[in-house]
C-alpha cells in the first residue's frame, strides 16, 4: 500500500501543470449558463483540444492521450488547482462517450467523438420527462419506425445546457407499454437510445431559468423528428440497459473528480487562515470538515482507482460516491458563504456564489440521493427490496 506516483506519472502531472499555467484564462470566464459564457467555454474546449487536453483518457485517434485512470485523476487535480473553467462538454464526455465506446459502432465513434472533444458539437442528455423523474422507466416519448430511421415525439425536460447546445441523446419508447395491462409488462423493455440535433425540424427548445434565473436547462418539445438508423445507439429496444451502463460512469469515478473538491477546500482553508475568526470554533470545525471531506473523497477515489487497475469493477459502490460528493459540495459552499459573511449574499461575489447555486442541485440530478440510498441499502447492505 502506498501513495507514491511513478516517475512517468509525475512527469505527466508536470506536463499538465505547465500547460495549464500557460493557458488557463487569468480572469474567470463568464458563467457558462449565459449565451456569452457558453461561447467562451466552447472556445476554451477548443483550446484544450488543440493540445489534446480536453479528453486525456480517450484513445489518441479521437483526440485524447490514452492515459489511465490515475493520470486522469492527476490531470483533474491540476486542472482545478490551476483554476480551470467549468467543462461545458461534460455530459457528452462523461455520459455519451463512454456509451459509444461500449455500444456504438466504429462509424459513430469516428463521426461523433472528435467534434465532441473539440467543443464543436456540445451534447445534452434528454432522459427526464415531466412525468418521469426518479421513475425514469415510465417515460412516454415515443420512437416510431419509418423508412431508414425513426420518428420521435414527446416532451423532454431539465436538459442541462440545452438552451445553447447542439445535439441530444435520449431514451424513447419504441414498443408500447400498458401499465397493469397484459402485454409488455416491464416498463424498462422496448426503449430505444438515440441521438438527434436540437435544430432539426420538429424540435422546439424552451429554456428554463434555474433558481438564480440563468437558463441552465431547457424543455424539448419533439414532433415527429426524423432520426436516421445510424443515430441509434446499440440495438433498438435495448435502450435501458445501454443507458444504465453509463449512469455508473456518471455517479462513479468520472462525474465529479476529487480534484475539484480538493482545490475548493484548499481555497476555503486559505481564506479561513486569512480572514477567519479563531474564536469562532463552530465555523472553524466546518472549515476543517471541508478539508477532511475533500481528502476523504480523494483517497476513496484513489482506492477505487487502485481496485480498477487491479481488474476489479466498481458497481453499486458508485452510489456511495454520488451521495457523498453531492452533500459535501453543499456543505463546502455553505461554509464558504458563512465565512464571507454579509458579502456572501452577493450573487456575483465570485465563484462561491455561483458554485453554491450549482451545488444545491447535486442531491437531485444524476439520480436523487433517495434513490441512491435505496441502491446502497439493497445492493451493498442486502436489505429487502422495497416498492419504488
Amino acid at each position, binding site marked *: 500500500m502506498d501513495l*507514491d506516483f511513478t516517475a512517468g506519472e509525475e512527469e505527466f502531472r508536470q506536463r499538465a501543470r505547465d500547460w495549464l499555467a500557460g493557458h488557463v484564462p487569468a480572469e474567470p470566464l463568464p458563467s457558462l449558463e449565459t449565451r456569452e459564457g457558453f461561447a467562451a467555454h466552447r472556445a476554451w474546449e477548443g483550446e484544450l483540444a488543440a493540445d489534446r487536453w480536453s479528453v486525456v483518457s480517450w484513445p489518441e485517434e479521437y483526440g485524447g492521450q490514452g492515459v489511465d485512470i490515475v493520470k486522469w485523476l492527476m490531470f483533474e487535480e491540476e486542472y482545478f488547482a490551476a483554476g480551470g473553467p467549468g467543462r461545458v462538454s461534460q455530459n457528452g464526455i462523461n455520459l455519451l462517450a463512454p456509451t459509444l465506446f461500449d455500444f456504438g459502432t466504429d462509424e459513430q465513434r469516428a463521426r461523433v467523438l472528435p467534434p465532441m472533444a473539440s467543443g464543436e458539437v456540445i451534447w445534452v442528455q434528454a432522459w427526464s420527462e415531466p412525468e418521469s423523474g426518479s421513475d425514469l422507466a415510465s417515460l412516454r416519448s415515443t420512437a416510431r419506425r419509418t423508412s431508414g430511421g425513426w420518428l420521435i415525439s414527446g416532451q423532454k425536460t431539465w436538459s442541462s445546457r440545452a438552451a445553447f447546445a447542439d445535439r441530444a441523446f435520449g431514451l424513447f419508447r419504441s414498443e408500447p407499454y400498458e401499465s397493469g395491462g397484459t402485454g409488455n409488462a416491464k416498463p424498462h423493455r422496448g426503449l430505444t437510445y438515440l441521438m438527434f440535433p436540437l435544430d432539426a425540424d420538429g424540435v422546439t427548445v424552451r429554456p428554463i431559468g434555474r433558481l438564480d434565473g440563468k437558463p441552465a436547462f431547457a424543455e424539448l418539445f419533439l414532433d415527429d423528428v426524423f432520426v436516421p438508423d445510424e443515430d441509434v445507439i446499440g440495438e433498438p429496444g435495448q435502450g435501458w440497459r445501454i443507458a444504465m451502463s453509463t449512469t455508473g460512469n456518471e455517479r462513479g469515478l468520472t462525474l465529479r473528480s476529487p480534484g475539484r473538491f*480538493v482545490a475548493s477546500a484548499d481555497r476555503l482553508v486559505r481564506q479561513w487562515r486569512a480572514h477567519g475568526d479563531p474564536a469562532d470554533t463552530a465555523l472553524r470545525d466546518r472549515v476543517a470538515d471541508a478539508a*477532511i*471531506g475533500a481528502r476523504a473523497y480523494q483517497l476513496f477515489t484513489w482506492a477505487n482507482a487502485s481496485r480498477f487497475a487491479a481488474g476489479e469493477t466498481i458497481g453499486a459502490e458508485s452510489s456511495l460516491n454520488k*451521495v457523498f460528493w453531492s452533500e459535501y459540495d453543499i456543505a463546502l459552499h455553505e461554509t464558504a458563504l458563512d465565512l464571507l459573511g454579509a458579502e456572501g449574499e452577493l450573487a456575483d461575489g465570485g465563484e462561491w456564489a455561483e458554485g453554491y447555486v450549482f451545488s444545491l442541485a447535486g442531491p437531485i440530478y444524476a439520480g436523487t440521493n433517495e434513490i441512491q*440510498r435505496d441502491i446502497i441499502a439493497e445492493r451493498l*447492505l442486502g436489505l*429487502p427490496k422495497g416498492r419504488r
Partner: protein
Amino acid sequence: MRFLLDDEQREFARSLDAMLTAADTPAAARAWAAGDHAPGRALWGRLADADVFALAVPEEYEGMGLLPVDMVVAFVELGRHAVPGPVVETVAAGALLSRLAELGEAAPAKRLLTALASGEAITTLGLPEGGPFALDADAAALRLTVTGGELRLASGHARVERSLDPVRRLARLRPGELLASGAPVAAASRYAADWASLATAAQALGVGLALLDRTVAYVKQRTQFGTPIGGFQAVKHRLADVLIGLEFARPLLFGAALTLDTADVAAAKAATGEAAYGAARAALQLHGAIGYTAEYDLSLWLTKARALRGAWRGPGECRRLVLSGDREAD
C-alpha cells in the same frame, strides 16, 4: 500509487478475525468490566502471539519494525471484536520508547521494550496529549507517564473511575521513577500521541463496522407490520448513511497510516470517531428497546463508540489540528 492492502495484510486481518471470533471476546470484555482480568489476559497472550504488540517496535527489541498500516489493520479487528484492555496504550508506548531510542535515549527501550512487544507486560500510558486519565492502570504491569517533559514509570494510580464504557477503567497515574527527560521526551511523546490517536481511530472504525453488521442482521429478521423492518425506507436510508460515513472514513485512516502526519491522523480520528458514533446512534435506534439493555452484547460497542470518539484527541482538538496544517497546499 497502489492504495490497497496487499495480500499479506488482508490475510493478517482474516486470521485475527478468526482468532477473535473463536476467543469469545464479548465474554472477556464483560469479565474485564467486572474487574476479572483473567480471560482478558488470556486474550492478550493470543494477540501477542499474533505480533499485535510488536507492530511499533524495532526488530532489535524483538519487534516487527514500525508498521503503522499493519497496526491499523489489526486495530480495526480489535474494534470489531470489542477487545478489552489498554491495547492502544501498549502499542503507543512501544512507539514512544522506540522513538526515544532513535533520538539517542536508548536505556528505557532496552529495559522495557522486549517485554512490551512479547505481550508479557500489559502497558498503559499517560501523555499530555491524551487527557488526565490512563486506561486500565489496575491491570497494567507497566505504567508510563510523561509530565513536564519527563518520562516516568508510575509508582501507582489513584482510584479507578468508571467510564461510560464499562469496559474502560480510568485512573490518574502517580509519577514515579524518572526514565528520561528533555527534548527527546517531548518529541517522542508527540509521536506516540499520533500512534495512539491513529490506533484509536482504527479501533473506532472497527466498532462502527461491527455496529453496522449487527444492525443490518437485526433489521432483516425483526418483523413489524408483517414485514422485516429492514424493508422500510426510513430504516434503509439511515443505514445507507452509516455505511457512507464508515466507507469515507476508512481511506483517511489508511492514508494517515502511510504519512503519519499529525494533521492526517487528526482528520482520520475525527472522521472515524463521527462515523462510529453515527453508527452507534443508528444501531441503538434500530434495535429498539433491546438495544438499550446492558445484557445484549450490542451495548459493548455502543458505549465504546462514544468513549473512543473523545479518547486520544476529541473532535474539536482534531479539527483544530487539521487546520493548524503541516500540509498546506498538498
